[in-house]
């Protein structure tokens, strides 16, 4: 405590912070009241939620559905939102730990990064059943288990991307920043908060925003889930839609879609826009942005003194942490290590890792062999080929449709200013909300889900292509466009020699994301229920979904493994090559 008093004394003596802000703004302003009210509302919401989270829950008697009374929708919306933000917080914490370990520990990096690469390709939805069972057993008799399972699904859909982004920013930190941090002898803690986190903030925030958008899909899929022939439902938007679909009530689904739309837009406006605008301060001058993101909410917060009031008590805590973490040492590595000891360490570490991996793989194969026979792999690979064909058709059709539209939007600044937020909302809107409507249409029109499934998968995945093509097209330098126009490059030549090569890098990024999303979506898109109609397609997604419903773990394991093999294989064989080509030949 004495230390803190001394610190405060320092503040008063030299008056650097927060003096300026204080005397410029003597009294409370309307802005402050507004911000304060918002803070109060937030606290009230959290307090109101807290008891509900731990509601008694008995697996045998738990309601398989929630009420479809629209009056409950605000409550459900808040519950869903709460899950999303807990998932986000966990993802950020995971990102900090995992990415830092991978970037700073050379041995760990060799294991963590390939592992992350695989994790990114594992279809999250396939594992939902396993995690739900595990979490229910972890919290017997409480709804917390289900709650955690849902949050876990959200977490797995956000964390990998963010971790990769942060890891990448850590290893590509400017050399002089790293050197000056070491010369200044920053401690590990100081280096992390003063150098590493700020320099990775922009990629982290942007990736967080994109991943958050994608996570709505998993929220909707994870709130109402069938495990071991029993359906569990958590109060939330996803389970509301599931319940409405069960009753075959399209009007209730429509209301939910509307509320969902409002929620996506509100989260963007109240949370992501301000955060993105705030993160601009971490931009290094070399990477100038074309247009500075702005946010009304952030401007409001900046004009209010409430954030300062909230932050002030946190400062002594920050100082204390700074002191407490000193024993962890400097952010420095010894220049020379005894070669023999390093070699021995390597051998021991990688020996241990390989032993664990080989043993685990052997046990898994043995388990599958006993329960299903390894011959099942052949059958599942064929099913995978069917889903693969759907993904390919989806990519081709989506490209043919969206590339020209994306180019048109991207090349017209006025159109893209209007279209960009719309596309953003469309991209983050959980496509599985619309599945019942599409299913109703398929039933009415007599379309098989084998074909219709492509459309369902595309509902979520196509936006990534559009989104990236718009970004790519709007990044084409205008002098290049003017030169092409002056030279009279038109029609076919304009597309093949100019536009398509110019947007190629952006298109590849969109394609990878769309393909990954489509594989994941196949698990919910190849089996659709609407009222008493059950539509099923032939494919790997349907295989996993059915195995999950009856709780056949060996089949789930095979299905998920095969899907991961497909995704990883395609990434390695196709996408990575295209990516390299894009970077070397077509980078503008």
């Amino acid at each position, binding site marked *: 405590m004495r230390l803190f008093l001394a610190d405060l004394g320092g503040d008063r003596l*030299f008056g*650097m912070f927060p003096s300026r802000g204080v005397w410029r703004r003597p009294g409370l302003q309307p802005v402050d009241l507004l911000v304060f009210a918002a803070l109060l509302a937030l606290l009230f919401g959290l307090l109101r939620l807290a008891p509900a989270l731990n509601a008694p829950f008995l697996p045998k008697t738990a309601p398989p559905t929630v009420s479809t009374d629209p009056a409950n929708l605000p409550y459900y919306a808040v519950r869903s939102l709460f899950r999303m933000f807990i998932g986000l917080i966990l993802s950020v914490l995971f990102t900090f730990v995992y990415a830092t370990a991978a970037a700073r520990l050379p041995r760990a990096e060799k294991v963590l990064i390939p592992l992350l690469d695989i994790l990114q390709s594992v279809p999250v939805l396939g594992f939902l059943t396993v995690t739900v069972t595990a979490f229910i057993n972890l919290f017997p008799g409480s709804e917390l288990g289900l709650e955690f399972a849902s949050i876990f699904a959200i977490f797995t859909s956000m964390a990998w991307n963010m971790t990769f982004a942060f890891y990448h920013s850590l290893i590509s930190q*400017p050399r002089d920043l790293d050197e000056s941090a070491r*010369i*200044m*002898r920053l401690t590990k803690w100081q280096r992390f908060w003063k*150098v590493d986190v*700020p320099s990775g903030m922009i990629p982290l925030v942007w990736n967080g925003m994109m991943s958050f958008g994608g996570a709505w899909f998993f929220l909707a899929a994870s709130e109402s889930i069938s495990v071991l022939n029993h359906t569990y439902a958590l109060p939330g938007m996803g389970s509301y839609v599931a319940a409405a679909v069960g009753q075959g009530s399209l009007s209730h689904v429509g209301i939910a879609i509307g509320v969902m739309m409002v929620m996506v837009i509100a989260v963007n406006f109240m949370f992501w826009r301000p955060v993105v605008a705030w993160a601009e301060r971490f931009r290094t001058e070399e990477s100038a942005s074309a247009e500075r993101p702005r946010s009304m909410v952030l401007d409001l917060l900046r004009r209010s003194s409430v954030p300062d009031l909230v932050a002030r008590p946190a400062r002594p805590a920050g100082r204390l942490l*700074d002191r407490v973490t000193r024993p962890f040492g400097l952010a420095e*590595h010894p220049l020379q290590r005894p070669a023999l000891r390093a070699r021995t360490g390597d051998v021991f570490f990688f020996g241990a890792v390989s032993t664990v991996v080989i043993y685990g793989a052997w046990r898994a194969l043995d388990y599958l062999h006993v329960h299903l026979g390894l011959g099942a792999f052949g059958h599942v690979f064929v099913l995978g080929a069917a889903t693969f064909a759907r993904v390919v058709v989806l990519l081709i059709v989506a490209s043919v449709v969206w590339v020209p539209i994306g180019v048109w939007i991207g090349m017209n600044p006025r159109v893209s200013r209007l279209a960009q937020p719309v596309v953003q909302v469309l991209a983050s809107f959980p496509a599985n909300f619309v599945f019942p409507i599409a299913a109703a249409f398929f039933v009415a029109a007599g379309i098989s889900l084998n074909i219709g499934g492509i459309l369902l998968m595309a509902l979520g995945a196509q936006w990534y292509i559009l989104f990236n093509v718009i970004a790519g097209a709007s990044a084409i330098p205008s002098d290049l466009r003017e030169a092409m126009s002056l030279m009279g490059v038109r029609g076919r030549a304009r597309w093949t020699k100019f536009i398509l090569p110019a947007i190629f890098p952006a298109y590849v990024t969109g394609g990878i994301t769309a393909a990954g999303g489509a594989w994941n979506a196949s698990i919910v898109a190849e089996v659709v229920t609407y009222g008493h109609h059950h539509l099923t397609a032939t494919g790997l997604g349907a295989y996993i979904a059915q195995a999950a419903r009856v709780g056949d773990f060996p089949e789930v394991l095979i299905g998920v493994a095969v899907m991961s093999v497909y995704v990883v294989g395609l990434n390695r064989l196709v996408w990575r090559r295209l990516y390299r080509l894009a970077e070397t030949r077509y980078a503008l």
Partner: protein
Amino acid sequence: MTTGPVIVEARGVTKTFTTPDGRALPVLDDVSFSLHEGEIVALLGKSGSGKSTLLRCIAGLIAPSAGTVAYRGNPLNGANPGVAMVFQSFALLPWLTVQQNVELAMQAREVPEDARRVKALRAIDLIGLDGFESAYPKELSGGMRQRVGFARALSVEPDALLMDEPFSALDVLTAANLRGELTRLWEGKEFPVKAVLIVTHNIEEAVQLADRILVLSSNPGRILAELPVPLPRPRDRQTPGFEQLVDTVYGILTGREEEAVRAAAEVSGDGAAATPADVPLPEVSAGGLSGLLEILAARGGQDGLAELADELSFEIDDLLPLVDAAVLLGLARVHNAQLEITDVGREFARADIDTSKKSFGELIAERAPLIKAILRALRATEDGTLR
């Protein structure tokens, strides 16, 4: 001149990098020197002399492949605890204000918060930035940013201040201004630093600042010469002593290359070709080369290197590769820091595009070992292609 106790000592420092294709690339070869209290030492060399690498070895940022660096007698195994560094690119954290940037280094050294504030303000004041404490680096000009870099380095009162081409990202006038202030501070005894080691590729900068100049050779870096600078400060560029020293350094830097080329030519005369590794191609453009020759021809065919550099506001990294290329192709020759155009060079400078292209091709095929080797290998194959 009396020298104080040794602060940093490098002994037999050798550094070899490995290229992506696995070859060893020697950058520093057996460099030994020490930095004493009370002196400013300049490390001067062309690009490829490993001078920045040497500085980073001394800072304890990278490990030498062989040899040791010791701070006050203790061998380094991590960042040097007794130095602060000023970077060419400033290396300020853009998300911290000027004062926060300066305080960060002290925070790392556990200076109590109030003392930290006092010292930071004093350092900011000393370097002439008072009033800008709460500005962010991106709001400042390059020269002011480098002042923050200086304030940050000085605030921790290091034994030695290391500077890695601190003025080369600044425009000529700003650089001259900062150099002058640095000299004034150093002379004023207010300076909280006992010694300065500056890496530069600007000869005049070295002569103006240093008590001692270490001239490094290129590929790999070795100490070519050690020159004391006995001139009193502040130093005037127009004085004969100053100019003479600049010419001497030019002579040292070009002399050795001349020898290498001559040696290569002699060897190839005997039939055994000089290897391309002995005489690498200078990194210049053909356009720059003919530009230099045209200027030289316009000035009567001869001019001093220092005058040329001054006229073109070139630093040695800009000028010397061009000079090397001209000498290699026999278009000019260097003698006593004077560059003189040859007859071939005069013809080359006068010729039209096609002729000059043709004679450039002939000259380079004849005189550049690398091109010669490639052509010979091409002719030796049947279809004139190499894979």
